[in-house]
């Protein structure tokens, strides 16, 4: 797995977390359970996000943002049994030979990676 893919994946996981902490219901449940957190967890996570984003090149980051704003759910997905984990269309076999570089699903445009 390339460093870029790793960072994009980390970024996406951070985005899941931010989404949860922005959700009132989720936050209430966290409090009820007894988790004590920073005054402004979202702000803290956004700072981490900024730092992480600096570690990949700008155009890649911008592409991540574009894909995310288009699909809302995820920007980088695994290829599962030859199918894109985002749109479930078949990924051309010639792409699977290029596991070391970052690719986009020809159908939906999301970043794809092989486990």
């Amino acid at each position: 797995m390339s460093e870029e893919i790793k960072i994009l994946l980390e970024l996406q996981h951070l985005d899941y977390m931010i989404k949860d902490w922005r959700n009132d219901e989720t936050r209430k449940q966290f409090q009820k359970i007894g988790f004590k957190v920073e005054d402004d967890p979202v702000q803290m996570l956004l700072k981490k996000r900024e730092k992480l984003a600096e570690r990949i090149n700008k155009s890649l980051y911008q592409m991540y943002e574009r894909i995310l704003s288009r699909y809302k759910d995820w920007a980088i997905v695994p290829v599962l049994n030859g199918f894109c984990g985002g749109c479930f269309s078949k990924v051309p076999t010639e792409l699977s030979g290029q596991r070391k570089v970052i690719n986009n699903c020809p159908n939906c445009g999301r970043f794809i990676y092989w486990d």
Partner: protein
Amino acid sequence: MNLYSLLKPERINLDLASRKKQEVLRELVGAIRKNEDADLLVSTLLKREDLGSTGIGKGVAIPHGRSLVVDKLELVVGRSKEGVSFDAIDKKPVHLFFLIVAPPQDPGNQYLIILGRVAVVCQELLKRKAYEKPETPEEFIKLVKEIEGKL
């Protein structure tokens, strides 16, 4: 929703070797994923810990996160005799861990429901240190089942 039905013997480690935060997260994660998936999970869980420890006191911690490396909710239990330093809110070492990893898309919000359920069951497991008694993962699951039967 019952916890015991989500528990699997191979995901219950009643004798954790780790004594520190990062190591114990890795040991717990190791029960569900290896290699790069495990690295990603650990780094995500650590980011969550940075917001404030998931050690909620009295020796219990509930590390949690969402990840696309799982396609359904996964639960891992860990127990440590010696205790793990986990920056818990009461500063006490943690003896009982419930790790929860949920997929990002989670219809019915199973993640939150299970988190709440784990917290409740943990309070019962703490009573008279009930969690110390099981000697096998199967016995642990049986104990959780008994607890849930009385809830």
